[in-house]
């Protein structure tokens, strides 16, 4: 509107001359709607009472003028021209009987008028907005803000769980780092010998080997080692002539008793 306005003020808006002037100002337009709005203004009426038919004529004259002076028009200008030609025909011809879903010519014209009014309204609003006192231009903020000092203190998020986990991990690393082989808890032959010798003195007759085992001689490693150690001790004592041993069959209980004192020839 800015560049074109002075020309059009002076010239009759509907003549080819005006259109040619507009063509020369084409650079200043932001598309066909902008051009239409400028043309509409030239009707010097309230936009609500704009003559869309006249507007279409002006636009088509503009396009014709542009062609005459061989100016390349962007595609959207041509699309608009085609649409306006169509609109014009719809406005001039009686509405077809079977309209279908298609909007009628009057509706299309009203829609175009609304579009132009809305854009015009936004332009005016933009102007008013920019006319407001603006910060840094008309209104000023504190030039030397002292700022609100913020002292940041770090608060560490650490829970008891984190603490214990850390200690646990430390402990585990420590254990795997210093590889101390835990002493095997086994029942030794010496222990079995001692125990067997003591117990034999109290037994008058045959007794099973298992009755000589220490308490808790279950299937555990300790229990099994006690069984082995006691059996080995039995054999030792037999060898020394202190114990007699018998077994009635394979896997049958092993019996032992104190050997009767023997006269050694």
């Amino acid at each position, binding site marked *: 509107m*800015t560049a074109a306005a002075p020309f059009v003020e002076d010239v009759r808006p509907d003549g080819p001359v005006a259109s040619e002037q507009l063509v020369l100002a084409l650079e200043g337009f*932001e*598309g*066909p*709607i*902008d051009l239409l709005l400028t043309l509409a203004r030239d009707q010097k009426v309230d936009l609500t009472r704009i003559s869309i038919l006249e507007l279409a004529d002006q636009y088509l004259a503009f396009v014709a003028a542009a062609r005459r002076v061989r100016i390349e028009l962007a*595609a*959207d200008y041509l*699309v*608009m021209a085609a*649409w306006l030609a169509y609109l014009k025909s719809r406005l001039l011809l009686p509405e077809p009987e079977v309209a279908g879903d298609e*909007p009628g010519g009057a*509706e*299309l014209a009203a*829609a*175009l008028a*609304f*579009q132009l*009014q*809305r*854009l015009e*309204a*936004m*332009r*005016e*609003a*933009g*102007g*008013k*907005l*920019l*006319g*407001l*006192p*603006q*910060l*840094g*231009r*008309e*209104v*000023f*903020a*504190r030039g030397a*803000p*002292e*700022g*609100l000092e913020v002292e940041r203190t770090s608060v560490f998020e650490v829970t008891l769980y984190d603490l214990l986990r850390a200690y646990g991990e430390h402990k585990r690393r420590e254990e795997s780092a210093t590889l101390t082989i835990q002493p095997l808890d086994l029942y030794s032959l010496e222990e079995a010998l001692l125990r067997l010798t003591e117990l034999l003195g109290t037994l008058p007759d045959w007794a099973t080997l298992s009755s000589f085992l220490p308490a808790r001689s279950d299937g555990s490693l300790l229990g099994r080692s006690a069984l082995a150690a006691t059996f080995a001790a039995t054999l030792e004592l037999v060898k020394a002539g202190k114990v007699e041993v018998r077994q009635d069959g394979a896997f049958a209980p092993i019996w032992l008793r104190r050997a009767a004192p023997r006269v050694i020839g």
Partner: protein
Amino acid sequence: MTEGDPVGSDMDHEQQLRLLEALLFASSEPLDEATLGARLGQGSNPRRLLAELADRYAGRGVVLVRTEHRWAFRTAPDLAPRLRLQEEVSRKLSRAAIETLAIIAYHQPVTRGEIESIRGVATSKGTLDLLMENNWIKPGRRREAPGRPLTWITTDHFLDHFGLSSLRDLPGVEDLRAAGMLDPRPVLTALRGGGGDPDGAGDEG
């Protein structure tokens, strides 16, 4: 940790006003009521205090202005001609930028497609960029529509910059709404800008 104390109780009314004054003076950016309330201490009523402070400053060379829930001291607009401290180096906004800003301000939230259908042309790349760079606009929520297009809205700084208390204070906004001018829907496909999204281009009767 003196801030942790229930300072509200140990400050009389006048002292609270003094603190409010100092807080707002110290900051060049508007401060929101919640922040101010937290500074004043529990049990304080920042809104009432702010209203009282604004009253005291009314008519002075420096005034207390509100944008939404944020408050700031600003020079009185009527002094503008006398305040130009240095040559302004303000970039002139292009017509496209002004129009786009107005459309976003008045129609928000508004999609780029809607902006284009109102303006009748594709939005050049730099326009939204420039407005965002000025911190006047920001992306809003995506529209629940095919393609989920992004919407644009204005920022708090926009209000601050143009001295508006709220969007209701936009010049002529009520008249425009009453006149039905704030309907962003595309009117006719043929009138759309080139770059608009094809979605939602439903003709309206």
